[in-house]
């Protein structure tokens, strides 16, 4: 009985005061911004040559909502931070053995520890392959 009375009282109180109102710009019916996405899609990797002559490869791409990028498939697994401003990354990967075919597994990690799906990249390390034009490492130096 008491609960019912309280509920009725609350309803009356709300009606008397009226609900909150927010003025929004014309054409915008949202009163709050969209919540930040917490999805962690597979990283996007920039196109790489199918055959590569040098011992170190700079893997570039973007990884939305991730704090770091991880690459396995070429010796020790390597890690680099994802730029928080634009979600891009650049990570040097040692391709020590040649000739060899590498399958690099690229995935990102959210700050809460979640891992993204894997993006796979395949390439051949071949000392005799044509040198890619303007190939640079992550520090801006020329790949060699």
């Amino acid at each position, binding site marked *: *009985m*008491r609960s019912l*009375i*309280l509920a*009725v*009282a609350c309803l009356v*109180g709300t009606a008397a005061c009226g609900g909150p109102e927010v003025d929004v710009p014309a054409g915008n019916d949202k009163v709050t911004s969209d919540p930040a996405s917490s999805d962690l899609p597979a990283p996007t990797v920039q196109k790489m040559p199918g055959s590569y002559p040098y011992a170190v490869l700079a893997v570039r791409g973007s990884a939305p909502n991730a*704090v*770091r990028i*991880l690459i*396995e*498939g*070429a*010796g*020790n*697994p*390597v*890690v680099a931070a994802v730029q928080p401003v634009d979600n891009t990354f650049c990570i040097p990967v*040692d391709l*020590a*053995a040649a*000739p*060899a*075919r*590498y*399958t690099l*597994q690229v*995935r990102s*990690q*959210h*700050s*809460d*520890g*979640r*891992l993204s799906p*894997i993006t796979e990249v395949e390439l*051949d390390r071949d000392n005799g392959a044509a040198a890619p034009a303007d190939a640079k490492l992550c520090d801006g130096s020329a790949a060699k």
Partner: protein
Amino acid sequence: MVVLATGAAGCAESEGSTTDAPITKAHVMALSTYSATLGTPIDAYIQNPPTGNARAFELVFDGTFTRPNGATEPVNLVQAVNRTEAGAVRWTAFGPFGNPFTPNTPDIGKFTGKLGIRVTMDDGTVINDEKPIPLSFEVKPSIIITELRPVDSTCGEPALRMLGGMSYRLKATTIGFDAKTIDYMMQTPGIVPDDLGEPQLDVDSGGKPRMMTRQLSHTMMNNTDTVEGKDAFVLPPVPIDIPNYGVVMAIVAHDDQGHSVSTTFGMTAHNPIEIFYDGRYELAQIYPAKPVSGCMPGGQQGRAVTYSESQMESRQRQLSVTMSKTFLRSEENNWSTSDGKTVTHGTTNTDGYSRSHTDSNSFTFTKTHEDTSGVQFMYSSGNTVVGKAGVSFKVFGIGADAGGEYQHRWDKSQTSSSSSSNGWSSANTSGSSDTSEVNHSTATTDSTAVSQTNTKGGSESQQAGEGEAVQNMWTVTSQQTIDRGFAGMVVANTQGVFYRQMARYTQKAFVVVYDKCGAGDVVGDVTLQDYVWAPDLALGDKCPPLPVSNFPEPQCRLPPCDP
């Protein structure tokens, strides 16, 4: 053509591969680097990170270390690490005091083997990595600090923490590097004496701390150098109002070819005794709710009612200090309290406590003040002794006189420490005359408890310099807690009654003492009992009987339980 799928280059097996069976437990995926000089922090990134109630993380290395001359030795290393975020832990003990892969005879070289992570949950459950990853890790030419200790100590290993006011000897050696010279830089916050001569942080007019840097260069002999004697690093004392300060050491060794190796590490300088408090509150007791109004009818239309704290309730906060008997018996201590204090030992109640003991270490530092060149804190040579280290018990941020200075001296002679002049002691000197020191050296029963209750509660504590404001801080009232307006609606045809309920919160800090080598030991605790109140409007169909309040039932969760 070689086809490398995953795993280490040249490995046919692909352990740790993401194409294997799903990994369901915490698992190391990668390190931040695989080639580092000693002293470099190493991050490890983990898959399936455990929940926040994981108590400890350890990296487990299992493999072989190969020296430059080809000699190998097995490695079974379990290294504690700290969690830095959900999916990352940090290994901060990779140097600079040794090579963890070869602790006995440090050398450069390469570890080859597997790395996994071990997680210990707070219930003691241990989770091991299901699939340690294969890796290689190179230890590059480095500087190792083989000694870092107070000049008059005999620590077997480099100090884990430093002590403010002490003078430190440092010994550095290089591995994998033929060094000719070595440069040292030690940076600490600037410390200057205040009006009373006590150390305080040196800040500029904008409140920004001024740093103090000491630089030193030596010629290395056989890749080894020692900083000692007049070159020893002297740390300024730790100001009484901060728990510790940071010390940054940067060391660079150079060869005659223009190459260099360096190490930079930070340590903390502490007082020999300090209070550790992490800011935690615990709900200790909920008291019975008290009706503080009569029956208030809602009438035919209902009625808005406002709580007014006209009959306030007051309580005294209680601060108690408990020190372990072991500590009190093993060192010379001086403990003094002020008004309202009791010292409990079995059935003995006295005012004040002191203990002397002859079997103690030599611990000595002093400070001198030279206006011409700022402030220098000088190490006092000789067997003894101007050793003094105080710590304030103003840990919970309540009034200066809640503090007390606890002196811990390491003197060779059995001299009695004088009472401190801050905090409780200062209250004693002007507020009451019942302070006396009692030697408990023969007391052997249970742990000795020194407690102070109802601090500042008495009206007689009108000592100079400790004004009303401080006194008020010790007396808490319901009016302070329920100062904001609290209103409710007595629904039509019901009856309302205001209740008030008191709760007790406990704040607990720990007294930690460090030996000269920086090893810490918890020797006591400091507990504050604080009180808060909350109002409630209870409604019922009729009154009397009094409507039942919405407050939780009285309960005591942490002693001491009041009725």
